[in-house]
């Protein structure tokens, strides 16, 4: 009996073992074999006895009993019935763990905790590397000079800045950490995701500065985003440049998707472009959120223009095809110079989509006719219009790519990785597929931007600054 108690108290392999465990293992194996043999016999005789036994096993003291009034699945009901007499109370889960040393909580324990840790010899080499980086100025706010304010929102303020170390321009994103709920999710996601992403078509996070109430992210600075770029060239881009931008967008996206990271909020404002014409994905704050965001960092209403119809109709599915729809919309916008579906409400957005691509049917979108939201909108039956009529500057390969991006059936949409191999990009040559992740597409001499026909004044936006400008731009 005593031995039994002793055994019961053992919870883990981490505590010193006695032979009881070895015994129990043997016994377990025996019992396991016995039961299995028995089960086979029972099964042979058509008995269901063991299933019953299993049910009872799960019944008592289950930590996962269904809440009242919910989860009345047959499975849950079975379990619930069997331990109906056990009421669950909040106390069961909410409790102060009685840990080995149950001293009263000293009010200054957090400070103490911080102090102690400073004296601890740094165990990790990464730590010491960080220390040496900080000697030269990384991780310190005084390393960066704040210039103009670029924007402000509820969580973050963005400044243009300059690094004293490199003299380079940077974007400083200051995030306030003092909120009811602590550090904002968006900040945590953005930083932890970007730290693992090193790619020529993804904005580089240079440095993170953690002060008491504030987190400052130091990004590389890019003058333009795609929206401004389109405005600067009078919404008339060279179709060759469209192709180069598309390729870069897909390259960055394929890299993210290959790491199970979704962007979720692709739009021209989030695609930054520098003087060389390098395009980089930015604003990853929402990347992991599964819910459809309605407000941004800066508290602007999120645009619906690039959102796929499945999401507009309430789908909470969450996978890589979700980004591909937006890529199609952006492709169209670059080629035609106007947004593809500029709806201001969900209904208007869907209406614009269906008017151009046709109201979905069971053929184009299996299951759609049983979608309650779709039925409730009661859209008229539009027939699909040929895309070429709306984007006449696009060649037939381009139209084919666009068609494959703008499919109603999410799983049918072409993936970013596959899209890079699309014949539309054949004219860029073979070498674009062999680039290392961090190499810019412009490191290949055959890849050069052309002059955008709609561009007024100088050859390229911001070319007045000139000295980094590539000859090839002209």
């Amino acid at each position, binding site marked *: 009996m005593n031995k039994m108690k002793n055994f019961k108290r053992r919870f883990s392999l981490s505590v010193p073992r006695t032979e009881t465990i070895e015994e129990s293992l043997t016994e377990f194996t025996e019992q396991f074999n016995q039961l299995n043999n028995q089960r086979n016999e029972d099964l042979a005789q058509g008995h269901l006895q063991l299933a019953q036994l299993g049910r009872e096993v799960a019944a008592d003291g289950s930590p*996962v009993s269904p809440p009242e009034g919910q989860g009345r699945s047959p499975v849950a009901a079975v379990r619930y019935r069997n331990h109906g007499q056990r*009421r669950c109370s909040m106390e069961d889960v909410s409790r*102060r763990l009685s840990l080995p040393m149950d001293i009263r909580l000293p009010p200054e324990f957090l400070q103490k905790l911080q102090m102690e840790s400073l004296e601890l010899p740094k165990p990790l080499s990464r730590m010491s590397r960080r220390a040496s980086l900080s000697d030269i100025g990384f991780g310190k706010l005084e390393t960066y000079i704040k210039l103009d304010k670029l924007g402000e929102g509820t969580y973050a303020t963005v400044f243009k800045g300059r690094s004293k170390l490199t003299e380079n321009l940077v974007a400083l994103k200051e995030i306030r950490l003092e909120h009811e709920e*602590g550090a904002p999710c968006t900040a945590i996601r953005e930083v932890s995701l970007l730290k693992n992403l090193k790619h020529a078509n993804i904005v580089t996070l240079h440095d993170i500065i953690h002060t008491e109430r504030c987190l400052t992210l130091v990004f590389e600075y890019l003058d333009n985003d795609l929206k401004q770029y389109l405005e600067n060239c009078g919404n008339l881009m060279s179709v060759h440049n469209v192709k180069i931008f598309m390729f870069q967008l897909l390259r960055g996206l394929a890299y993210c998707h290959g790491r199970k990271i979704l962007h979720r909020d692709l739009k021209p404002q989030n695609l930054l472009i520098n003087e060389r014409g390098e395009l980089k994905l930015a604003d990853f704050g929402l990347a992991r959120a599964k819910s459809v965001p309605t407000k941004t960092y800066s508290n602007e209403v999120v645009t619906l223009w690039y959102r796929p119809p499945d999401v507009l109709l309430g789908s909470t599915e969450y996978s890589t095809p979700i980004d591909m729809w937006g890529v199609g919309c952006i492709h169209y916008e670059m080629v035609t110079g106007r947004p593809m579906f500029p709806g201001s409400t969900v209904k208007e957005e869907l209406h614009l989509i269906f008017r151009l691509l046709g109201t979905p049917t069971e053929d184009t979108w299996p299951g759609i006719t049983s979608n309650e939201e779709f039925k409730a909108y009661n859209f008229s039956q539009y027939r699909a219009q040929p895309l070429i009529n709306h984007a006449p500057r696009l060649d037939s390969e381009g139209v084919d790519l666009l068609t494959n991006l703008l499919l109603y059936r999410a799983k049918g949409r072409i993936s970013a990785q596959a899209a890079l191999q699309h014949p539309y990009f054949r004219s860029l040559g073979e070498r674009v597929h062999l680039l290392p992740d961090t190499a810019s597409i412009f490191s290949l001499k055959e890849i050069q931007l052309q002059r955008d026909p709609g561009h007024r004044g100088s050859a390229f936006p911001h070319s007045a600054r000139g000295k980094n400008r590539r000859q090839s731009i002209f």
Partner: protein
Amino acid sequence: RRRAGGAAALRSAGAPAAPLGAARGARHGGGAWGRGRRRRRGESAQELQAFRDYGESWYRSRKGLESRFQPREPLARQPQVTAEARCKLVSWLIPVHRHFGLSLEALCLAVNILDRFLATTPVAADCFQLLGVTALLIACKQVEVHPPSVKELLALCCDVFTRQQLRNLECIVLHRLDFDLAAPTVSFFLEHFSQVRLEARGADAGEAADARSLAAGVAELSLADYAFTKYAPSLLAASSLGLADRLLRHRSPLDLRISGYPEGLLRDCMDQLQLLVCLNGRSLSLLLPSEVAQKCPWLGDDR
């Protein structure tokens, strides 16, 4: 008569003795089962397509990050926190994460954050529980749509800690870990290996699903045991699946060679897991969906 596996071990180590969930109801319109678990059962065509497009690449990238995120002897430098205390804490976090309907992924991340923080900073025993909920909060902010609120988490600790303390500790943890939070988890690898298995020709979908459920329970259990912090998540995932197949006597078990680990290493990890299962049969049966628990009568039915 003494019954193996009936020790209700994790329970005696500090997990609540009674079921959770009923008192509070489910937060997000789901049952007491985590969303992750339910989602897994009704795997969508869209996710399957994404796996076909990128599964291999996801695996390679996570595998590449594994060693960077592996905690190394997290308790070696802790003056007060012991393996037993860690077990208590994690055994408490297990029902807590289920209570909120959180995914196994979130739980794994929380434990990873906890361990890596412990490896860098000595923690007083009396704020260890606060560290536990803080790690859970950070993990949820990363991967869940609706992280539990600070208020809810504090209430779970009987309000012995204040909001300000939790927020301070959150800042310290984020700073200490330098925002390196995207650790590869056992949950990811379980999903991956199971998906690969399903894609193979002649796959038995039923067996694959059962093995995945049982292995998820085993892996969840192993989080609470300090001895398993030395195993990489991909090794734990492969071994849990191997053990599950063995325990369920599957006809077409997962070919463990896809994990790339040598047989000896897999066998060692599987043996340790089997020992864990045998010590915690009752607790494990409570972690499993009932249809899977029914197939595991050897988990022990003593009470």
